[in-house]
């Protein structure tokens, strides 16, 4: 065995080595350094900047779930926001009587149950037809919440947590506290994701995605695998929704509409379907793009020259944001369908082999 710290390629010689969570020591070290950096990052940021990070991490958890259902199992879902909503409302209803470390997993479990039920049509239908079934669930969720007095008919239900182990959670430390909670949950769920995919259940997901009849012939149960994929993806969504509820201090149904589902799907595509790194890069890219274009739009509005060259009655600056969002998705689909993950892969492989070209 060569020195594991100096590996520049794939030297795995056994099945056990091939199924490790981390491929080599360098990867463990880099992940460790990344985690330390992420833990220290809030020290250098304003409170409101930490809020942006929190949203990115929450969306990353939801996109991870979507990547299990859509990226790995190949089951198109446009209902991930509804699963987030199920988790969020579960948290909102249980938060007055349970601590947050119970309400959030509970939100995930209730969402998983919803995912299991929504997945039942996947036993009979595929592709666009399945997407329509998930779309129906998304719309039914919003409809049901809107007509449920117990859920304030979609109006706000406060979700407040003022104290944790003697630490008072106030406006000043709210975002920092939740940053570390969300980061912890994300790390746990990423490790669980990697752990799942190296085992037989993960391989079953891929096999069913690639050819469910062949998977069936090889002894896997495609129906059970699909339901499992839906339930697990929804669990991740539910956990993300629960965290969002605490982050925003209240739950309103507007957060969990089709628009959010489509945005999550866009984040998954931009990041790279079926990858952990893509699940984090996608939300980060979309959120930073939003911030960047917002700044550009504000600058354009304040710039007299730009205003003088735009036709009267045409608000180019305001139109910039929706335009850029759509354009980015189209460009990624056309020129980089593997998403940002592919760029990450290329950069990583360059440095892995460095200073050698091959």
């Amino acid at each position, binding site marked *: 065995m060569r020195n594991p710290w100096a590996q520049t390629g794939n030297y795995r010689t056994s099945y056990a080595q091939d199924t490790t969570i981390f491929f080599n020591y360098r990867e463990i070290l880099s992940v460790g350094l990344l985690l330390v950096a992420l833990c220290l990052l809030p020290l250098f940021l304003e409170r409101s900047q930490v809020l942006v990070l929190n949203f990115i991490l929450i969306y990353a958890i939801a996109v991870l779930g979507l990547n299990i259902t859509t990226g790995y199992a190949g089951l198109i879902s446009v209902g991930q926001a509804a699963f987030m909503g199920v988790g969020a409302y579960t948290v909102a209803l249980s938060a007055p009587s349970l601590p947050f470390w119970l309400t959030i997993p509970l939100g995930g479990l209730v969402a998983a149950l919803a995912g299991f039920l929504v997945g039942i049509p996947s036993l009979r239908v595929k592709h666009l037809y399945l997407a329509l079934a998930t779309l129906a669930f998304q719309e039914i969720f919003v409809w049901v919440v809107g007509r449920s007095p117990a859920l304030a008919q979609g*109006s706000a239900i*406060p979700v407040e947590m003022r104290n944790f182990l003697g630490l008072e959670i106030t406006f000043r430390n709210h975002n920092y506290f939740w940053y570390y909670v969300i980061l912890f949950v994300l790390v746990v769920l990423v490790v669980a994701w990697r752990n799942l995919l190296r085992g037989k259940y993960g391989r079953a997901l891929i096999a069913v995605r690639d050819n469910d009849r062949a998977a069936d012939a090889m002894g896997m149960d495609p129906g059970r695998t699909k339901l499992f994929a839906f339930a697990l993806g929804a669990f991740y969504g539910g956990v993300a929704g629960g965290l969002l509820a605490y982050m925003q201090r209240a739950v309103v149904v507007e957060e969990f509409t089709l628009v959010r589902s489509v945005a999550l799907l866009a984040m998954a595509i931009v990041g790279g379907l079926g990858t952990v790194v893509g699940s984090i890069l996608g939300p980060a890219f979309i959120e930073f793009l939003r911030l960047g274009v917002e700044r550009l739009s504000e600058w354009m509005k304040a710039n007299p020259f730009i205003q003088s060259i735009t036709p009267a009655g045409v608000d180019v600056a305001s139109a910039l944001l929706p335009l850029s969002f759509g354009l980015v998705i189209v460009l990624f689909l056309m020129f980089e369908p593997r998403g940002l993950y592919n760029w990450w892969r290329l950069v990583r492989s360059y440095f892995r082999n460095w200073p050698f070209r091959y």
Partner: protein
Amino acid sequence: MKRAMTLALAVTIGLLGLVLAQGRTVTLLWSGAITGPTSDVGGPYAAGIEDYCRYANEQRLIPNVTLNCIVRDDQYQNPNTQRILEEALDRSKPAIYLGYSTGAMLQLKPLIQEVKLPTIPASAHIGLIDPPNNQYFFLPVSSYSEQVVALMEYINRSEKNARIALVVNPSPFGRAVVDHARRAAQRLGQTIVDVREVGGGNLDNTALLRALDAAGAQYIIHQNVAGPVANILKDAKRLGLDRKIKQMGAVYTGGSDLIRLAGDAAEGYLWASSYYTLDENTPGIALQRQLATRYNRSADILNSTNYTAGMLAAAIAIEAMKRAAQRFSGRIDNDTVYQSIIGMNGPNAFKPGFAVSTKAGIEIDFTRSEQTGAEGLRVLEVRGGKFVPITDPFTSALFRQVRNP
């Protein structure tokens, strides 16, 4: 050496004079939908706030204070609203916040309560001024629920035991009025025959109108934005139901947008509004015309009631800041502005001339427990392509009874 010292002293005095002349900067924050859903309301509303702020700075409405009016587009997305508010709290510590959408405002209630930031939202959802976490919210005009109950009282003047259908937006914004309307109907002897939810994209409303007609609806009360209402009005005209069913709605259903979208079909539509129309000669409307011309606003913006609404919100905020400076030795912050707002009553009520006054002659007033500014409203009707007032200003007698039964 002596010359250098004299020069330094002169420069110091000059700089000090410049600083004193410029005064302090105080921040006012607004975030709302300049783009995205409901931007037809948010765009003119934002323009109203921007223009009134520019005017306030030019006229030095608050002596020795420069207003830093931050107007930002949240694209009708709650996470953006939260981020913009928290960013402002970190960086510019606004003395007052002018909010926008119902969902975001309801969601931000706990945060606003915690940071004790006086907030004047564009949304008139009653839940914003209902407990809990309602202390710092102030509605510039009467709530949607009050407007709808006032319309029901208006119906009751001419027709007893009327049969009414409610058509509301499929959101907390729309649903806010339903419970209050049901309670009011019970007290007035009216019947709510149906409650339907209709959002944007309602291109054919034949089934809706036929169903409401079959249910015996004589009146439809809308709580929505202008687009869906305009489509329903056009379909009612096409089906000949415009003569059979009278339609009316709360503040965001009407205005120039409705007339532009519905055309002839808008004729006869009734609208509950606290705002003066552009045809009226009041100090507020005159200022609106003047500022729209000065700042090159389009005719669409000038004609929009939402432009008036934005100006009224900004006017209340800036007046509260001005009074805070007078009352608290120049200190303008969230605390003093809050004290000024709740002191804006009785002889200290505010009369900018954007909204109608109550019978007592009060246009805008607030107390610690009465968090609605303009409590007077009128019913206006579309006649000859214009909204014309058909009642004197009145305040709903019934609403306070049905609000907390």
